[in-house]
């Protein structure tokens, strides 16, 4: 059994991020899908801490677009995990965009929404370009919490959301960034037309699904994670796609990951 505080826990192993470099995952898009019964927010918190706490990558930056919670929410959670977001924000290593307080275009419709999105994307690209010019830069991380609220903010246009993700992904491949997005699977479960979530699954290199246990609720096990890592193609060839499934339990300051039946 491994906790999220220990090096190389099951989640990190499944993600394939090289711990020696303290990061990795550049040029990739990681999609987290959760449900009402099993929130995947803990994965976001874990990844924020990993990206900001790597000793070998002191100049890496996390660009965070928040549609779901205020800064104080994340600050409180990460402090319990041993990471001071306030300090990181002052040091310009944690760039926080409070999308909740932006003026959403309620009258301009989709055109106004696209203009807003263009403006947000421009800020992200500028931040990433600035960081990449710094000495010792390895890579940046762009995080979005969460996509379904982003869609609401953009007048329900899932196509605009997908356009934005496409551009973030192109930025990721150019500047060796990691894009991490959180979306709710059950929001799209009753949609008759092909779900935009499926588009995101095609786009993503890594898909993490947080689901309840097939057997129902349990006190010691809060859910299961399925990590699909599609592998990457480089000059020497393509690595094989891998899929891992294990259970998790969210504690006060950390998360435990373990294979079914291995918990004592």
């Amino acid at each position: 059994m491994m906790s999220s505080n220990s090096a190389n826990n099951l989640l990190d192993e499944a993600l394939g991020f090289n711990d020696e470099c303290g990061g990795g995952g550049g040029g990739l898009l990681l999609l987290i899908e959760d449900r009402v019964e099993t929130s995947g927010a803990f994965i976001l918190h874990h990844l924020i801490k990993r990206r900001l706490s790597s000793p070998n990558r002191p100049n890496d930056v996390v660009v965070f677009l928040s549609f779901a919670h205020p800064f104080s929410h994340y600050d409180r959670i990460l402090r319990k995990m041993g990471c001071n977001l306030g300090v990181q924000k002052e040091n310009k290593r944690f760039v926080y965009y409070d999308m909740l307080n932006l003026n959403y275009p309620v009258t301009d419709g989709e055109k106004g929404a696209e203009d807003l999105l263009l403006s947000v994307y421009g800020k992200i690209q500028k931040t990433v370009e600035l960081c990449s010019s710094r000495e010792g830069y390895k890579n940046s991380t762009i995080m979005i919490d969460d996509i379904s609220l982003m869609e609401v903010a953009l007048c329900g246009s899932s196509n605009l959301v997908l356009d934005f993700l496409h551009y973030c992904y192109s930025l990721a491949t150019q500047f060796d960034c990691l894009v991490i997005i959180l979306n709710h699977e059950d929001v799209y479960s009753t949609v008759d037309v092909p779900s935009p979530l499926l588009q995101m699954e095609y786009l993503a290199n890594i898909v993490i699904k947080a689901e309840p246990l097939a057997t129902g609720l349990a006190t010691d096990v809060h859910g299961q994670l399925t990590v699909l890592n599609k592998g990457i193609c480089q000059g020497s060839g393509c690595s094989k796609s891998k899929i891992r499934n294990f259970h998790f339990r969210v504690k006060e300051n950390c998360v435990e990951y373990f294979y079914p039946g291995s918990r004592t």
Partner: protein
Amino acid sequence: MAAEAISRALRDGALEGEHAPALTIKDSIHAPLGAFVFDHILAQLSSNISSSKSQAQLRIVDCYTDPLGWKIQLAESGIVSNRSTQNATTASLCKNVRDLDMLFSSIVELGKEVIRETKGRFAVAIDSVSEILRHASISSAASLLSNLRSHDQVACLFWLFHSDLHEMKASSALEYISSMVACVEPISNTANGKGMNSENVPLIEQNLGRGKFSVRFKRRNGRIRLMSEELHTEQMGINFVPAFEGHVTSQSLVPKVQFNLQLSEKERNDRAKVVLPFEHQGDGKPIQIYDGRRSVSESKTENKETNAEKMHVNEDSGRGEIIYIRDSDDEMPDSDEDPDDDLISDSTIFFLTVGILELLTN
């Protein structure tokens, strides 16, 4: 093999008076191997062209870097540098993927520019049509593909399509335009939608590395030919192997109905033994005429004299005889095709429209 048949058809290009061959490569999220097939077909076509007298040339219409012109807009307003679009210097940058008329013009213009001196034709590959359908209607996309297919200087055309991202009518529309449809399906049936557990993980993982590869060829005379095999992903690409039954399945399009339309082994043998009227047997023995009312053995004993008389009459008259040569029941595949179709067309220039640039670096 199905994959080789596809490569041959694309390599041979458009015949005189026909539209260019068009291939749809179709996959789904449960068998996401379409991109591997696309890369394989691309490599094969490039290799085929390179092995001929012509030199394969690759041109890209980049619809990936800045499909909506956002980066250009931001660069022009000074918010960001124009570094993002500078990488596309080796490609023709498309800044508005919603305008398919402009996209068509870009493709044709670039293709003509390349083949200007050689006066050959160019091939077009699109990765992927699913992305185009996010920005344009199915009728516009179908029109683009149809116009490319009917263009005089387009030798062949193929595209990738994720069937589960679109409604059935989109999939059908694309298949109607295609002369070949290659479908990748899961090798294992998993309990999709019934919850994940550690038991179905190996099956899902298997589907990420292997798949069923079924190809439907639409012949010029309207006949359909089906072929299927398996595909396995490997480190340096994919490999096609015969289907699980141990042989390539090549079947006619027999509809599934409640009565049997096929012949058993015994029925085939009995049919082979039936002596048809006026069939030239030419084996030196007396010709046996079966009049359709009695079995052949009865005819031998009861009609011997009559046959002998008929033969005698035939020999004596010398005025003519009926020689009936039966058509073969089993028409050879490809028998109606011109054998010269196999010749590699000269100066076929290869042209590519790419959604993802990283393909080039491999």
